[in-house]
């Protein structure tokens, strides 16, 4: 356990939430990425958060791994699309914009909560360093 540990814990969560926002913005950017029916659709990317040494007092969070969503996608009838197969279907990714926006809001809220943690910890540490100076 190091000095000013609370800053490290808050910082680790800021990193994880930023990774989450990156994944969500990546999903939203590729929401209309079409694939031919023979290939995999663009897979939704999700990150799995994991507590650092849960219960040991080490504290903090990290990204355990990426999970990919379904590769099936949705089959949409678009015969004019150059990638369409003989029956006129193309594969769209199975990503719901509403759900992604909700996740973006949650990630943002978590990010701000951890910013306030870092701020509160900094204030407390600075006050402690003034002890006995008066």
């Amino acid at each position, binding site marked *: 356990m190091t000095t000013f540990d609370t800053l490290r814990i808050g910082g*680790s*969560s800021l990193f994880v939430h930023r990774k989450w926002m990156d994944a969500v913005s990546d999903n939203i950017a590729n929401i209309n990425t079409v694939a031919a029916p023979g290939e995999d659709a663009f897979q939704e990317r999700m990150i799995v958060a994991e507590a650092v040494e849960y219960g040991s007092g080490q*504290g903090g969070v990290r990204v355990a791994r990426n999970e990919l969503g379904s590769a099936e996608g949705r089959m949409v009838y678009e015969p004019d699309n150059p990638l369409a197969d003989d029956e006129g279907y193309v594969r769209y990714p199975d990503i719901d914009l509403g759900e992604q926006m909700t996740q973006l809001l949650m990630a943002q809220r978590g990010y701000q909560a951890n910013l306030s943690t870092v701020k509160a910890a900094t204030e407390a540490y600075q006050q402690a360093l*003034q002890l006995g100076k008066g």
Partner: protein
Amino acid sequence: MSALHASLTGLQQRQRVTADNIANIQTPGFLAGRVDFESTLQSEIANGETPVAGQGSVTRSMDPTRTDGNNVNLDTETIIQTETGLRYQLALSALDGKYSLLRSALRTS
């Protein structure tokens, strides 16, 4: 005064654990941690012993969990964080006040 020191250590630990709770708000299966140092401190003072500046006990909260097994409530943690910060600063001021009192006593000699 060592009671103030003991409370500072306990409050700092609570701040760390609360930061850990807020950091793990999305972690599946994570149960919020709770620090209790007040009961040890109170019993030590009631028994007339000198409080030792040790760590409080950390327990896992048994609040109901969401579907992913996480039971961290952001509002609760934010309140705890603010309160702990204020109490920490209060204890620091009290300690600082005692020190300046002693210093002025020494200075008048």
